[in-house]
């Protein structure tokens, strides 16, 4: 939730009806001793325990929820991480890992009885290898920091979440972050080649490296997107790509969201995969134009930005084809960029959409569901109904190529009940996404925000299988508890088999 100024709750307590795991009383009682032990591992200013100094850590990007941790621990090398985790494992102390703390789903929300393990000191790029096209970085390096380290040779790191200035590559691994270019270039998981990771036992493993695919089970594929529940990543190797030779964009206005959606489907059906394809609805267009004044048409109901990137000859060819498709589908306005400045202007409004909405409303709540694109008219109609039901406006920006919807619910946290209504509105949107065949989260993660909705997508058996993976990595449930799963079952209980003995030689199954 990216409320800008939500101060709806007294600091030091988790808000709303969110139920977090019961704090371990024995750990709280041993706090002073635990802090002393941690100081022996991470000396000096690496352990923070005063309320005032811990205050900046009490929430992440989901600011409606806040909680002071047991202590903040800021290790500076893998050996320290290993010792801290081994200590916590031996002493039953919970651990919440955190990169930059930009999570919009509360994935890095502290717990009263857990240390907050901040990875900010892991901020060095360790290796740049242009011949093999990889960068190896510590997890606290920012997403944009990786691109900045290789841009002088014309390379970049493809996933570009909108928080890329601040968010860290370690956090990207935890959340499997996306961005506007992932239909063509993939999510974090498609761009990470290796990690060094510390298990809760303190054991250090390396998965992958500068080569492709696993030589056995794909543990790396499971680590990416595991929201800090399986281990703490201390080193990340990513692939880098050559920046496309050219990029051009088309800005197309439509009389309805349905027409814009049809255009998106037609472009893909024509065999074109744009580098980026974004849609905005009327409220988002108006807010963006009022904020950045880039010349967005204000008489349209939906605006598409379609960006083609690649070799110049190809981009020019495809721009023509996309323009023909859009014209054939009754667009009201169509502009193809003819200069880099113009292309950047097309994007300026979209990229400023969130702060632009922030200007017209005291607070907003950013949702993140993915739907099959063809369900867009139904979902948009549903959101109009919900908007009336809850008495709150909603602006929509949409990664149209991959069906990832970001409704922004406008509310005022100072008006009693509005935050609760915004949250109920958001829940209804996500449940509708699931109902039409979509999912609860496209790129922001489950965290605490969508944890209690997991049952709408997965049944008990599905969730039990997910949790058995957790048990293989962290049998005591010490890493980031209270996130992702509505209820963490005890691993011993999950391990039991419930098959009644007997023969059951299934008379019907063909056998040979």
């Amino acid at each position, binding site marked *: 939730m990216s409320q800008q100024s939500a101060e709806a709750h007294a600091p030091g307590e988790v808000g709303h009806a969110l139920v977090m795991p019961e704090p371990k009383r024995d750990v709280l009682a041993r706090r002073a001793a635990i802090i002393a032990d941690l100081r022996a591992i991470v000396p000096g200013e690496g352990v923070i325990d005063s309320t005032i100094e811990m205050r900046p850590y009490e929430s992440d990007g989901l600011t409606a929820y806040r909680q002071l941790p047991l202590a903040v621990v800021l290790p500076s090398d893998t050996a320290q991480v290993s010792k801290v985790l081994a200590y916590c494992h031996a002493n039953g102390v919970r651990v919440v890992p955190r990169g930059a703390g930009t999570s919009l789903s509360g994935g890095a929300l502290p717990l009263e009885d857990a240390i907050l393990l901040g990875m900010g000191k892991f901020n060095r790029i360790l*290796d740049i290898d*242009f*011949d*093999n*096209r*990889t960068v190896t970085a510590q997890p606290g390096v920012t997403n944009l920091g990786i691109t900045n380290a290789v841009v002088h040779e014309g390379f970049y790191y493809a996933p570009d979440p909108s928080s890329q200035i601040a968010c860290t590559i370690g956090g990207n691994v935890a959340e499997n972050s996306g961005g506007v270019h992932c*239909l063509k270039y*993939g*999510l974090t*998981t498609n761009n990470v080649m290796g990690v060094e990771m510390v*298990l809760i036992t303190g054991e250090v*493993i390396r998965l*992958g*490296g*500068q*080569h*492709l*695919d*696993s*030589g*056995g*089970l*794909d*543990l790396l*594929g499971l680590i*990416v*997107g595991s929201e800090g529940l399986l281990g703490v990543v201390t080193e990340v190797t990513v692939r880098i790509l050559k920046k496309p*030779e050219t990029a051009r964009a088309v800005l197309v206005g439509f009389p309805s969201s349905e027409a814009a959606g049809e255009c998106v489907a037609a472009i893909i*059906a024509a*065999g074109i*995969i744009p580098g980026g394809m974004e849609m905005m609805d009327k409220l988002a267009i108006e807010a963006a134009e009022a904020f950045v004044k880039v010349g967005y048409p204000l008489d349209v109901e939906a605006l598409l930005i379609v960006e083609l990137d690649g*070799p*110049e*000859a*190809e981009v020019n*060819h495809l721009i023509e084809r996309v323009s023909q498709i859009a014209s054939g589908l009754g667009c009201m306005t169509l502009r193809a960029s003819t200069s880099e400045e113009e292309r950047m202007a097309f994007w300026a409004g979209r990229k400023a959409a969130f702060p632009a909405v922030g200007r017209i409303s005291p607070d907003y709540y950013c949702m993140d569901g993915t739907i099959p694109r063809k369900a867009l008219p139904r979902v948009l109609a549903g959101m109009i109904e919900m908007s009336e039901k809850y008495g709150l406006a909603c602006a929509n920006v949409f990664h149209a190529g991959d*069906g*990832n919807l970001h409704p922004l619910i406008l509310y005022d946290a100072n008006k009693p009940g509005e935050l609760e209504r915004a949250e109920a509105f958001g829940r209804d949107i996500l449940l509708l996404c699931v109902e039409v065949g979509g999912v*609860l*989260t496209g*790129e922001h993660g*489950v965290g605490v925000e*969508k944890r209690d909705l*997991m049952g709408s997508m*997965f049944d008990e058996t*599905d*969730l*039990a*299988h997910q949790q*058995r*993976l957790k048990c293989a990595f962290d*049998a005591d449930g010490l890493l980031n508890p209270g996130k992702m799963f509505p209820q963490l079952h005890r691993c011993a209980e*999950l391990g039991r*088999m419930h*098959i009644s003995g*007997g023969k059951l030689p299934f008379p019907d*199954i*063909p*056998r*040979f």
Partner: protein
Amino acid sequence: MTDAAPVIDRLRPRDEAEVVETVRWAVSDGRTLDVAGTGTKRALGRHIQTDATLDLSALTGVTLYEPAELVLSARAGTPVAEIEALLAASSQMMAFEPMDYGPLLGRPRGEGTLGGLMATNLAGPRRPFAGAARDHALGVRAVSGRGEAFKAGGRVVKNVTGYDLPRGLSGSYGTLAAFTELTIKVLPRPETLETLLIYGLDDATAAKAMSAAVGSYYDVSGAAHVPFALAGRIPALALAGTSVTALRLEGVPPSIRHRREKLEGLLGGFGGLGHLEAEASAALWAALRDVEPFAGDLARAVWRVSTAPMAAAAIGATVVQAGGACFYDWAGGLIWIEMPDADPRAELVRGAVAKAGGQKSGGHATLVRADAAARAALDVFQPLDPVTGALVKRMKDGFDPSRVLSPGRMYAGV
């Protein structure tokens, strides 16, 4: 290369409920199951003996295909050939270009299933640019060794709801769960293709040329190097009379023309240039994808090595010195190695991979063709360090505690 059939019984469930029933029977009766589709890749992995085969080949049929949504779902036993034909009719494809192990393992082409493709995480020459099967896995339905049907993932291309089990189960060779239905991302098929050839490069120089091409603006979608010793075994290259480095260009014709001209300028200094039109190109990349140069003598051991591209030539040199032969795909990142005889010489190959790659690059060697005795005695997959090995055992404990599903296929005791 025929495996003595380890099978005393073959069970062929017709739907997911019957798969559940079969696994529950195995658990309660203390039996082991060889999880298989049509069995085309049975000779991959460690040689195991089970009480029965869980034959999933009756679970067939595409259950969802929406070209404009770039998504396809099919039951696990659906033939890959059927899916490819369906996609081609809408000018789409599986962009990871799954290889066909048929020629390499002495079996007919085109008999594999979607479940087998995902269970072995297939890929092809487009791997460095478009990913492997794992990168296109969106959703899965499966039955674990607990005899429980479960699902994970979804049917949309952008989804981070819960652990990424569809990816985690790809490449698990049926040892954690038996797939019943899979959902994959599909993509438009390029309009046409061409191949730019560079003649006469040694392996190390070829690696540099491929790196320059892949690191250029000109969107190469395949980069392979075939040393002189093997060029004669590929019809499209047989007349070259020297080593050949091949760079594939795909897309719309004006783009291909532009990129070829630019690449010719960039790479002309490396050696003599040639090029192949669409039809010959398609034949070349299919031959490389399916490892046709090693389809001739099925008795010889074959390795598949993944490494950092710039580490590849040193590994190749060790192999050639020992009398073996190799060629390179994935700009050098994939090395196909054929040993001079049936002896895999695992220490030599894995030693070379470890030495050339070091900790920074990592890398792994999989023994993809060897007789059953060798595959029973040796680590077929890259051996795991003790900590990772224990982790993998705990995963097996979670998904298949009774060791019912293809036990030992990947690792002893797993």
